[in-house]
């Protein structure tokens, strides 16, 4: 009987791998292989115009990369962008989620409305905001001037001290809904009894939020923040469309693409891309270890 059961289990395992093969083969081909090739290219002097002739140059690309102040500028821009936009998105997302969690009339409509910025292409949202932030004809300058908040038009996307702030504002507009939805899902999974008890005891809502709600949704919140953070570290579209390759706002992805495509320097650009990959991987490991996030699909009872 035990023999029979283990044969059945063995067969199930075989079936599992058989069923996984097409998906794994596809991922190997389109993700793992290109990643390995990128890493390999980063030790060569390959050029985009002819990828077949190259020679091994060791770590030359990396030593040039780490001496390039523009690269470090891009690293700084990326970290600044990630930290500020994810913080703002989490805070605003929390406000929106708490609002949607109350019994407000028309909240179904609101929930649909917050999905829309998430659904439209980043390029479209960047263009819409690019036009609104236009220094001469933009409606943002017009509104701020007419209420007297500024005394002359601001060059939102050209002024080095403003452009990153403008980009973050657009990203917050685009990505907050996603955070709000994830937080809302966590809130709606909480048992109502606790809140009933807190209300009967007359505890102030702010205290309830800080000492009951926040600890309970912490795991879900952490996961949302990690995902959003890793997504922000590789940001490309919004920055490329709003400010192009401008060094004041260029992130690591923008820097790497400029080297790869505009300067056709596959070797050097791959070194930059590989560095970004390593940074993202290290960040992911740090937050997963520190936050003790359990990245698994729950238990394996089945």
């Amino acid at each position, binding site marked *: 009987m035990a023999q029979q059961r283990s044969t059945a289990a063995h067969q199930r395992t075989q079936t599992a791998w058989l069923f996984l093969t097409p998906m794994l083969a596809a991922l190997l081909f*389109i993700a793992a292989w*290109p990643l390995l090739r*990128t890493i390999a*290219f980063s030790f060569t002097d390959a050029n985009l115009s002819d*990828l077949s002739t190259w020679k091994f140059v060791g770590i030359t690309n990396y030593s040039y990369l780490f001496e390039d102040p523009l690269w470090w500028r891009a690293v700084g821009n990326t970290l600044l962008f990630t930290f500020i936009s994810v913080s703002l998105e989490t805070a605003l997302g929390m406000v929106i989620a708490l609002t949607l969690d109350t019994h407000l009339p028309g909240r179904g409509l609101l929930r*649909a409305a917050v999905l829309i910025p998430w659904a439209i292409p980043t390029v479209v949202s960047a263009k819409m905001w690019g036009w609104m932030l236009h220094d001469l004809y933009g409606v943002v300058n017009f509104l701020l001037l007419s209420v007297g908040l500024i005394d002359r038009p601001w060059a939102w996307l050209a002024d080095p001290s403003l452009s990153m702030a403008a980009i973050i504002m657009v990203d917050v507009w685009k990505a907050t809904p996603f955070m709000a939805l994830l937080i809302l899902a966590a809130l709606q999974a909480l048992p109502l009894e606790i809140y009933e008890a807190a209300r009967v005891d007359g505890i102030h809502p702010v205290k309830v939020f800080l000492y009951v709600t926040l600890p309970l949704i912490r795991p879900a919140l952490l996961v949302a923040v990690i995902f959003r953070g890793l997504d922000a570290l590789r940001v490309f579209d919004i920055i490329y469309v709003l400010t192009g390759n401008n060094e004041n706002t260029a992130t*690591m992805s923008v820097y*790497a693409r400029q080297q790869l495509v505009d300067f056709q320097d596959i070797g050097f650009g791959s070194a930059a891309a590989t560095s970004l990959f390593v940074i993202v991987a290290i960040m992911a490991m740090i937050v997963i270890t520190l936050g003790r996030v359990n990245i698994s699909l729950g238990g394996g009872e089945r």
Partner: protein
Amino acid sequence: MISRIIGRIGFYGLLGVLLFYAVFPFYWAVVSSLKSGSAIFRVELLPSSPSLENYRALFAEQSFARNILNSLIVASSATLISLLLAMTAAYALGRIRFRGRSAVLFAVLSISMFPQIAVLSGLFELIRYFGLYNTLIGLVFSYLILTLPFTTWVLTVFMREMPRELEEAAVMDGASPLHILTQVFLPLMGPALAATGLIAFILAWNEFLFALTFTLSSEQRTVPVAIALITGASAYELPWGRVMAASVTVTVPLIVLVLILQRHIVAGLIAGAVKG
């Protein structure tokens, strides 16, 4: 009592500001797209003489209809291929306990967090090697890196939630795994497939970096690249009215889709987020 009223006013005030911040850009895009000629440079909350000239120019003077068709072809092909491959994988990952299952799930999740730029030069080489540069097939191929890990992950979550009794009865009858998958689970996975497919479609539809890098001619461009690269008579003079018309054209169908299917989308997004 008074502090409560002030709190209420503050709350609704904040809500109003948030709603304005969320909705105004759409409103402004629509208004701007209806202004032709020099009217676009005047700030008017309602266009004094609305015209559809920008929309006419968008379709008549450039290949925007072609770009929309390209995006539809690429996004739906990538979605269908992903769903097909992910469905069998999800059966293995969601219904069978075996050694290496967590490792596979972890690999799938890791790939979905790859910075796209990290595979750009490797993919470029691959696409050129197969002669797929500047073709839609090349794009479909590269988009699988976005859609396949996502669909696999989400369908696995949905698959795990199916009742065990369903499968046990079929196993008793001696049904093969393929039979169980196609005859027992597939008919029940309709809503899950719709939700997952829709989000995968939106992911592929919105993609920019690969589409920008792997296409060259305007006939092969997808919508995001076409919009990003609309240029005017000179580099300093963007035809903003036309850019806004293009933005509105691709946003309206998405809004309709989202409003109709919001429940499914939310379910899919939440299944896609890892459980903590």
